[in-house]
């Protein structure tokens, strides 16, 4: 038994993407939302470009890694897929901290999942770090016939919560890539913002007199 496991993990490690060191940034992204709204499908569509209609409940937490090229940077995304079920909540919330971006997902054919968005957003506020970015995603937009949550309501709620909004379909591959890319962009923006505001090198000191400028003009015997 032990043996099997070892070999299984080995093969996993063999995958190129997880051991690839060739990237500039690493972002951690968390997908949250009610059970069965399609978080795992969404992730699989994005990471593997695959879709299976069968419903398999995620156990606790899982992740996939995908490296993308965006804004001239190679960005490694570690995308955490969480279990929507209440019973895993203690585990999943532990992953909120440290996540730079959230995809908060509901199912447009499921009123309840939409109603829970507010709660999920509270969870984010409670457990995540302050500058985490959130996108609201209404999944399963291919199932127009069964829609119970209009786009308009989704958008309004997103505005209300201050998130950006997408409707997407993991099944028909609508807006999946766009969602992730937008989230990455928002994180990048946030990143440069936070770097601009804080002077990294020497903080806390008033900028002293500019040392080098006080000096006598340079000598003639310079290199050029």
């Amino acid at each position, binding site marked *: 038994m032990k043996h099997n496991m070892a070999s299984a993990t080995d093969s996993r490690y063999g995958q190129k993407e997880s051991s690839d060191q060739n990237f500039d940034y690493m972002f951690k992204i968390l997908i949250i939302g009610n059970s069965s709204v399609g978080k795992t499908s969404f992730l699989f569509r994005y990471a593997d470009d695959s879709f299976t209609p069968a419903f398999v409940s995620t156990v606790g937490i899982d992740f996939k890694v995908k490296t993308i090229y965006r804004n001239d940077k190679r960005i490694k995304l*570690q995308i955490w897929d969480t279990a929507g079920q209440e019973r895993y909540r203690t585990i999943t919330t532990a992953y909120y901290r440290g996540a730079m971006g959230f995809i908060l997902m509901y199912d447009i054919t499921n009123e309840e999942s939409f109603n829970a968005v507010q709660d999920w957003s509270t969870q984010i506020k409670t457990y995540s770090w302050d500058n985490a970015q959130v996108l609201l995603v209404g999944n399963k937009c291919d199932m127009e016939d069964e829609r119970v949550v209009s786009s308009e309501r989704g958008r309004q709620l997103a505005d209300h919560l201050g998130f950006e909004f997408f409707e997407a379909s993991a099944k028909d591959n609508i807006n999946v890539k766009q969602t992730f890319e937008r989230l990455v962009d928002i994180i990048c923006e946030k990143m440069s913002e936070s*770097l601009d505001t804080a002077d990294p090198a*020497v*903080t*806390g000191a008033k900028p002293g007199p500019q*040392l080098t400028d006080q*000096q006598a003009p340079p000598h003639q015997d*310079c290199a050029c």
Partner: protein
Amino acid sequence: MSRNMEILNLSYLLDQERQIILDVLQRDAHIKKIEEKRIRKLKNELLEIRKKGGNRYRIRQDNKKKICVRCQKNLGVIFDRGQVCDCCQLRVCNACRVVDKDRVWKCTVCSKISELRKVTGEWFVEERTKRFKNTTSPGTEVVRKSIMRKSVTAKRFEEEGENSKTDTKENTTNNGTLANAQSAGGTDTRSLKRKNPKLLGKGDDTRSIRSNFDTQSLRSNRSTFRVNGVLDKKIVKPPINGDNISTRSDHDTRSLRSIKSVARSERGSVQSLETSGARSKSRGSTNSARSSLPSKGSKTSGSVPAIQSSPTPSKRSVSSHYSHKSGLENGTRTSTSIPENLSMGHRRIPSNTPSAAVSLVSVASDRSKSEMDLSHGINGENAETISIRSKSVPSGLNGMENLEPEEDIDDLVNSHNSSQMRNAFSETVEADTDRNLSYLNVPDADADTASICSRSSANSDVGDYRNLEVTGEIVLNISYSYRTGALNILVKACRNLAVADEKKNRTDPYVKSYLLPDKSRQSKRKTKVKTNTTNPDFNETLKYVISHTQLQTRTLQLSVLHNDRFGRNSFLGEVSIPLDSFDFENKEDNAYNLEPKVDSAPESTPQYKGEITIGLRYTPPEKCLTLPLEPGTGRLSFIRPRKGSMQIPTGGILDVFVKEARNLTAVKSSSTSDTFVKGHLLPEILKSSKQKTPVVKKTVNPQWNHTFGFTNLQPTDLQIICLELTVWGKESLSSNVFLGGVYLGCGSGNSENGEDMIQGEEQLLWQKMIDNPGTSVEGIIMLRSTMTKHKSNPTKA
């Protein structure tokens, strides 16, 4: 990690679920490892760039010439005049600039720094809210520890009672397998064995049951409650019960999981091999042995062998469900052994300490258990034991994160370490020598413990390096087990060794290893000596229990020595394997050529040791006179004796605010360090200038917020003196560990000490202070891995 790490209640997880989640965690650990490697590389790059920009102030002062601070190139008058970097206010040449996309540029160092903040994700971490200040441990870490511990609070046992039966079965098999694994790899410790009986006397069956269910079934917990209900008259607090149960059974998971707790697990395995009959027998006997204890119940021994029949109906109800299936309760028993031992004079502490990383908390819970055992005496009766236990577990344990007990156990451990621990340790080592299983991180165990020494005395550290040529190679298979947190070095063989004793034409080789930089005994492992061969087959595993993160800062050094019975051991060659870039996925044997002894010169490449945040303020004498000793200045413990004026310092005052450090090397098993900073002024005339911060415990990111005050310094002194700050890891019984340091000064060339060593940021900050008298300047400075002037012998705190 940090002691503030919270522990989640994951006891509700089914076994398969735990397995799945653990697999995910393992994958994550792998990713994290890669990430850390990458970041370390980047930080080293930054370090190098910074070092380059060395002596700008000296040159500025001496030559009045404009040069680029980064590459030291002279700047021109018209072309390439250099410009001032917005971030650091230093003038750099065109080549030393990095242009952002918005045509904004920074000098190489500043750009590197901000890039580092991006690539490391620090930009994000830094802005987290205050409320998370104490819980910086990543979610993964929390979940991992929690899941390993499988702990606490039966509060929310939800709806999975239905599964309990199957679960139990699975657990059992699981336990069984693991137990076997343990017994295979386990070691016998006499001291432990001796204790077995006592342990057994405590009502193992209940425990075993418990362990089984709390391996997660709700139902089982309920049934416990029932048991308690029956026993209610005996001061039971049923609601707490579940907690204790789960707490306890943690151990088994833990021990199953980690060979860190070898001592513990091995004892489990020993027992697991016994038949249940034998068990009950021994139990009975111990119970009677215990009869002197005050609260001993009458039903004692009879009740214990739950498999046969137990007098207490309630108990039976529990045991009949589970113990049949469980068959082996190794893990459980294992866990119990701890408190028992703790309570019996703390013999076992040494073996606990190393596992502290995983489980300080759970040890704590053990302790609480043991305490209660002592206070109430032990009733052989199982159910009773439960109730007692539940009662005695401190409320802190039940409710939430077990924080306080953790501290307690620490103290406890400390207080007992020195004396008893040695005994136990020595025994362990004796019994265990072949396996070389000892614990890297038990700081105290090292301290001249006779037992260890006795073994090492045979092969003194100092080999005879004289004239022996070095030939041959060593075949190794190095692996790291994330699950147990152990680095396993399988020393397979050596080939073509040089002949050590040419007179007798004899070579008795053995292999010794260290995990550098730790050269203490804790870090030493050895194989057996093979007699009279230059092609010895060892096939021995040297094992280090060490967290993966720590491992990356280490270098594995293996040396082959000839064991000379009378003279000095001769050196036959060595190999050094830096582990930060080691590919642990490569499962194959590797042959390494043995190399001659390398002079232990300080590493040529700077090593990332973390960074320290320092505030400096120099208050010149004229200001001091007006406000002689402002209260906010901090304590002025050093007064330089000059012209006998002790009352009012005549010179200026230098305040050194030692704020915090980040990413220090962890020296303890818990991936933390207890750190303090020493500061003093060079040159050494100012002997008395030495000052120290208090020790900040259990973190690699300590905040000292302590101010050193140095008085009586004339402005001119600032050009000469050099402030040395060194960070130390406090070790209670051995030498403190040097974790890095900085020199601050202007390196102007007048000081015999500061001459060449003060570089880059170290100079910059000092100069900034000089240029801004009366204001404090703060800066983050990379720690050096070596101090030029430093005596290699660390001093005692």
